[in-house]
């Protein structure tokens, strides 16, 4: 089943104080089916993260369309209303980055349980959400003693484990992965690949930027190679 059809997508940044535009990419076309994994590759600064952010709408695409087959119908992510994007981000589109945004006084377990509870499937079931959150943190190798602790005091790698558990807790329809293996040890990288393998088998469509694509070689169905100036 088609999940995403990108047509002529382009992104420029307007730098007002320099009265200049910076081009990221233009006329990008590709499709993505359920259960497919596309790797985005290219040199540093070419626009790989920018592409993912455009699809997540952290950046506003400058032109083109990104037709997403949501559970409620087809919608162009590039021009969708903000409230629709908020709705989609809650349940259907996930974005994994290499940075955790810890919140003051929120424990690792709570950070992971929160999106589980917010999503439709487990709404209002705090205990069940916490149980599943614990299982995820365990699989990524975060010691149970750290679950009630605040991630602001964790190492980079530990924070990334919380970040991944949080982002991958809920099964999205479309998952955007931006360098998720950064700062991870070998065990956590393997846990990540395993989790992605499970999600892929469950039909999650994925687009990923990986600094070391050999980690996910077995999962790749196709590649989008961006070449810059």
């Amino acid at each position, binding site marked *: 089943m088609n999940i995403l059809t990108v047509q002529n997508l382009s992104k420029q940044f307007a730098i*007002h104080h320099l009265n200049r535009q910076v081009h990221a990419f233009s006329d*990008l076309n590709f499709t993505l089916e359920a259960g497919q994994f596309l790797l985005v590759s290219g040199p540093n600064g070419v626009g790989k993260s920018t592409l993912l952010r455009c699809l997540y709408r952290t950046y506003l695409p400058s032109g083109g369309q990104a037709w997403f087959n949501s559970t409620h119908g087809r919608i162009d992510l590039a021009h*969708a209303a*903000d409230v629709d994007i908020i709705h989609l981000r809650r349940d259907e589109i996930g974005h994994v980055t290499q940075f955790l945004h810890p919140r003051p006084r929120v424990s690792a377990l709570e950070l992971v349980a929160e999106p589980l509870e917010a999503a439709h499937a487990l709404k209002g079931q705090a205990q069940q959400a916490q149980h599943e959150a614990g299982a995820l943190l365990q699989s990524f190798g975060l010691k149970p003693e750290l679950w009630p602790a605040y991630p602001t005091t964790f190492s980079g790698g530990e924070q990334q484990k919380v970040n991944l558990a949080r982002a991958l807790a809920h099964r999205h329809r479309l998952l955007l992965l931006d360098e998720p293996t950064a700062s991870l040890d070998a065990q956590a990288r393997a846990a990540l690949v395993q989790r992605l393998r499970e999600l892929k088998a469950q039909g999650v469509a994925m687009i990923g930027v990986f600094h070391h694509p050999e980690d996910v070689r077995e999962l790749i*169905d*196709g*590649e*989008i*190679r961006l070449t810059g100036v």
Partner: protein
Amino acid sequence: MVILNKETTVVPASEPRRPSSLPSPIFLNSPQLVTTPPLLEVRGLVKRYGKTVVAVDGVDVLAYPGEVLGIVGESGSGKSTVLRLLNLEELPDSGRYQLNLPKRSSLSGVDLFTLERYAKREVRTFQIGIVYQNPHLGLRMRNTSSGNVAERLIVAGERNYGILREAAKQSLDASEFPLSRMDDPPYQLSGGMQQRVQLAKAIALKPPLLLLDEPTTGLDVSVQALVLDTLKRLQRESGITMVIVSHDLGVIRMLADRVMVMRHGRVVEQGLTDQVLEDPQDAYTQQLVHAKL
């Protein structure tokens, strides 16, 4: 092009940089998946003071049920004036204000600015809660904290002391206020605690809309973080719709789903919080965002 079986798509080199006119603004569609109307619908708000000061110059405000809308801008941008107008404390020079409540009510389709004084007071009691930057504006500093919260319920018609006390307790608890101090007057409390009493008072009658005017400005940084966390939890658990005014982008980033940037009484940009903060389109917003320490 369809990508299957490890085919590779090569995107041609992007066009060389050129000094050029800046890209045209991007227009977004109307909501398609979210079919409930906005809870708060304000159009064409204008407020002048005297002949020369235009504090609010044609502002629309939409807030959907369960979302947090941030309004950010420098001092003098008009953001607090907008909030006072939303709280029906003042009348605008023009504009229409509608609350689209989930159940059919006498307020359906009514412009709240046209209500008579008593009806306005009813709206401010039952439909809107407000937390001011200065707790002196929202609290009676020499009454007890629980008394401050209970006053809200008394205004709504409750007279039973037991019920008043229990309801005040629940509200203070939801605001993460230490119940051991519920009979202390606010003037004896720290700034952060005073804000919690204001919050408890604002949510006592479980209104659908909560307005917050710089709720953590002036508090110690560590206390700020705690109060913001309380607000976030409360919002998540109750699903209350919030409009929060702040000049602090960190507060907005933490709490708001969408944000409006105001300057000289006008909205210069609005959108998803992460989008406005990370990919600001407007020149002023770019300056504002890049000025953050």
